[in-house]
């Protein structure tokens, strides 16, 4: 047992508590009187402090302790919530986050003790409380001190301490006898842990470690294994053999945080002989311990609804017990193996069809086919399961945004709020990890450039408070994330002027540009529209980075904007990165794959159905005008000598846009494994990967999103 095994749990749980604090402090600002919110905050802050203490991160503990004091004062109604205070709290939270980051990378909290922040916190308390401030810093200690007194009194009045009545098995008993014969002093000791302590086992471990500096632990109750597995209530008992007096041992135990108190006495091996006299006692102990836990909890957190919270916690436990943390690399490896399996299966399918064509297998090949189909079903299911394992809700990434917008709102002095929907939408873990930055950028963009100043908003007849929306949902094989604001929109004239100024486009050419083409300039490297550089945005490393990040994930981004009304950025991401269902098509003698998710339908049209709009080929299909894309021309295939009268057209869609891809032949649907083309020819916009067909041939995958 080693403290480092708790480090992962610590990091995860701390991050959770920080998030919960952040959310609830936001909520608190909106509803300063909401008792539930305050209690939730208090609970999270307390857990944070406790966990930092357990892990021995003293500075972090100190900071969170002082934060907790502030929350306590809020809870007691001594301090009113105002945005100034919220600012300080958020600053503290950022500092805690920093500690966590340091812990993550170095397993140590670092050297920043954040004195300034702590002073700010305490000053704030003193300022707001005036004369009554003496209760500020020490209140929680006082509270727990007095409680300690009470419970100690209680213990004294309710008879024997648990260690006197603990059961000792034969082997331990003989050790006791040996130790006492060797002249060592034997102490029985019961350690009580605070009722709201998390990671009880870790605390017990620290206690044992402290004790072992002085002597040897001869007997445990419950057993050491149970203690390690956290299978104990709020107290555990041990018998210690030591040469030292008990006082220093007690001090060492009490130095472990969240230890409520220690009861001890000198014991002799005789006390644990199970003679008649002590037969009845264990029962009494059983009765006492739960009773104690019950009386304690309400007292400690009388106003805290702690019972509810605890119930909630225990309710959660089975769920955690049923999950397993897996290194993402292992999942990657698993996914790769599934990919290989699918390739192998595809080659079996390909063999079975050629065998079938020979026609001489007859009866046997019937069974063979069935088995192949069976294998196909299994691999497809297996692939889906592995993929699902990798899916996580985008929540973890987006839930930091409300606070970011709040901070920006204050910094920019523009009232605005963020509305988020669809946080539960799931995406591949690797995508979720990398989508944070681009989204953050888009949101900052909306806050900084999008939302207008209050005066201008009122002038335009909009509500004073700006509104930014972040909306995520699944569409076919894609996940769509929309960032929308009701701000000023993109001033295409200004962008055009800027483009001319930069020499990107000539004045004449600029006249003919569509709004969409102009907006595309914004995605060019170092094209910032901010009139002045702020630390929020405007450094010119902006939308181009967003675009390239999203494209690196196999997605794309699209902008719609109306000047004076608002803009809308639509980010489209593939659900999975590795294996997709695809339609295989033939163009001349080359084979290409088109992702099935983007295909709407397949049409056979006659040559005479082709119409021309602006000198471009289109077809008119059930009310839609669909531009035709001649894949053979686009892909530089050899020209055909004579064109057929009938064309096979694969209609694909991206959002509201459609296009008809003209192909020579359809080969059928297949599950394909996407492989990269390698770094040297990766700059290809039309092809987004390759796949290996059943016969070992390589087929390229057409990126529909780049075409439409």
């Amino acid at each position: 047992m080693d403290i480092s095994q708790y480090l992962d749990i610590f990091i995860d749980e701390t991050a959770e508590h920080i998030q919960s604090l952040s959310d609830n402090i936001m909520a608190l600002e909106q509803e300063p009187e909401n008792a539930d919110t305050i209690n939730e905050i208090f609970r999270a802050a307390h857990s944070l402090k406790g966990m930092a203490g357990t892990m021995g991160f003293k500075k972090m503990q100190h900071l969170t302790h002082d934060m907790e004091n502030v929350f306590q004062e809020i809870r007691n109604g001594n301090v009113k919530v105002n945005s100034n205070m919220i600012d300080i709290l958020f600053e503290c939270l950022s500092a805690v986050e920093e500690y966590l980051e340091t812990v993550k990378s170095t397993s140590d909290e670092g050297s920043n003790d954040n004195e300034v922040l702590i002073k700010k916190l305490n000053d704030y308390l003193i300022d707001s409380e005036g004369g009554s401030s003496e209760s500020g810093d020490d209140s929680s200690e006082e509270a727990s001190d007095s409680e300690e007194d009470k419970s100690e009194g209680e213990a004294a009045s309710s008879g024997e301490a648990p260690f006197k009545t603990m059961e000792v098995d034969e082997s331990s008993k003989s050790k006791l006898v040996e130790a006492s014969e060797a002249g060592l002093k034997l102490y029985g000791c019961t350690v009580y842990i605070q009722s709201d302590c998390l990671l009880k086992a870790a605390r017990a471990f620290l206690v044992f470690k402290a004790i072992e500096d002085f002597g040897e632990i001869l007997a445990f109750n419950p057993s050491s294994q149970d203690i390690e597995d956290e299978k104990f209530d709020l107290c555990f008992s041990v018998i210690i053999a030591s040469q030292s007096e008990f006082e220093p041992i007690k001090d060492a135990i009490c130095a472990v945080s969240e230890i409520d108190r220690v009861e001890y006495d000198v014991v002799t091996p005789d006390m644990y002989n199970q003679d008649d006299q002590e037969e009845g006692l264990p029962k009494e102990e059983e009765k006492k311990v739960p009773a104690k836990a019950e009386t304690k909890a309400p007292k400690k957190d009388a106003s805290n609804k702690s019972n509810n919270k605890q119930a909630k916690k225990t309710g959660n436990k089975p769920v955690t017990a049923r999950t397993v943390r897996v290194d993402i690399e292992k999942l990657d490896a698993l996914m790769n193996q599934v990919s290989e399996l699918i390739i192998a299966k595809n080659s079996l399918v390909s063999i079975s069809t050629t065998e079938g064509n020979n026609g001489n297998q007859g009866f046997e090949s019937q069974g063979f086919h069935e088995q192949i189909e069976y294998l196909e079903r299994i691999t497809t299911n297996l692939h889906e399961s592995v993929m699902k394992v990798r899916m996580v809700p985008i929540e973890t990434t987006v839930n930091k945004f409300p606070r970011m917008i709040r901070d920006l709102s204050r910094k920019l002095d523009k009232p605005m709020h963020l509305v988020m929907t669809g946080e539960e939408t799931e995406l591949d873990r690797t995508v979720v990890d990398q989508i944070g930055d681009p989204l953050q950028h888009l949101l900052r963009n909306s806050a900084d450039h999008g939302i207008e100043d209050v005066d201008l908003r009122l002038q335009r007849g909009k509500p004073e408070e700006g509104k930014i929306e972040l909306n995520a949902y699944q569409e076919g094989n894609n996940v769509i994330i929309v960032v929308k604001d009701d701000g000023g929109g993109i001033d295409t004239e200004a962008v055009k002027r800027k483009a001319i100024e930069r020499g990107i486009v000539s004045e004449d050419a600029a006249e003919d540009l569509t709004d969409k083409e102009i907006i595309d300039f914004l995605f060019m490297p170092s094209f910032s529209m901010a009139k002045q550089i702020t630390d929020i945005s405007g450094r010119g490393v902006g939308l181009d980075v967003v675009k390239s990040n999203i494209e690196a994930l196999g997605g794309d981004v699209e902008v719609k904007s109306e000047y004076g009304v608002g803009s809308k950025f639509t980010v489209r991401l593939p659900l999975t990165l590795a294996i997709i269902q695809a339609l295989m098509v033939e163009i001349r003698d080359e084979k290409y794959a088109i992702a099935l998710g983007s295909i709407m339908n397949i049409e056979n049209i006659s040559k005479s159905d082709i119409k021309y709009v602006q000198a471009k080929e289109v077809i008119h299909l059930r009310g839609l005008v669909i531009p035709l894309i001649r894949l053979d021309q686009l892909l530089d295939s050899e020209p055909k000598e004579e064109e057929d009268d009938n064309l096979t057209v694969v209609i694909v869609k991206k959002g509201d846009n459609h296009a008809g891809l003209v192909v020579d032949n359809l080969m059928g649907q297949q599950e394909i494994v996407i492989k990269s083309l390698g770094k040297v020819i990766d700059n290809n916009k039309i092809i987004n990967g390759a796949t290996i067909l059943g016969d070992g041939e390589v087929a390229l995958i057409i990126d529909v999103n780049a075409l439409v």
Partner: protein
Amino acid sequence: MANNEMEVVNQEKVQYIVVKIGSEQYGLNISYVDNIVRMQKITRVPKAPHHYVGVINLRGEIVPVMSIRRKMGLEDDVYTNKTRIIILKLEAQGLIGVIVDEVREVINLGEDEIDRNVQNTSKKVDANFINGIGKDGDELISIFEISAIVDAVETI
């Protein structure tokens, strides 16, 4: 001691794979060579740089294949049953295939057998691709500078 060590270094020979491109012989440092495969179906990649012929399937990996002839401005490859694809393994670029007319042999060349003074090599070949001329008996073997072959690609 120091002298002895010097001698050891000097005598340490490097293995080169000797290939034929047109009428000339070239040497490839064997430490960059992952594999040599027979000519197989190459899938053309549209819009790829001109000297990339396409991609092949090498035991489940997609490997881009380049034509060193196109790269050096020679006339296009004519595939025969002696044509081979040499698979190079590079740290930054991963696997890359290079088409050669013929693979002849593996030779050992010491540093003293390589003339590093290569300013005035063949007019057809950009001297940048070569970092020395090895002498194996009567034969002259131009030593490819592998990083130049591929790095030059990346700047396109």
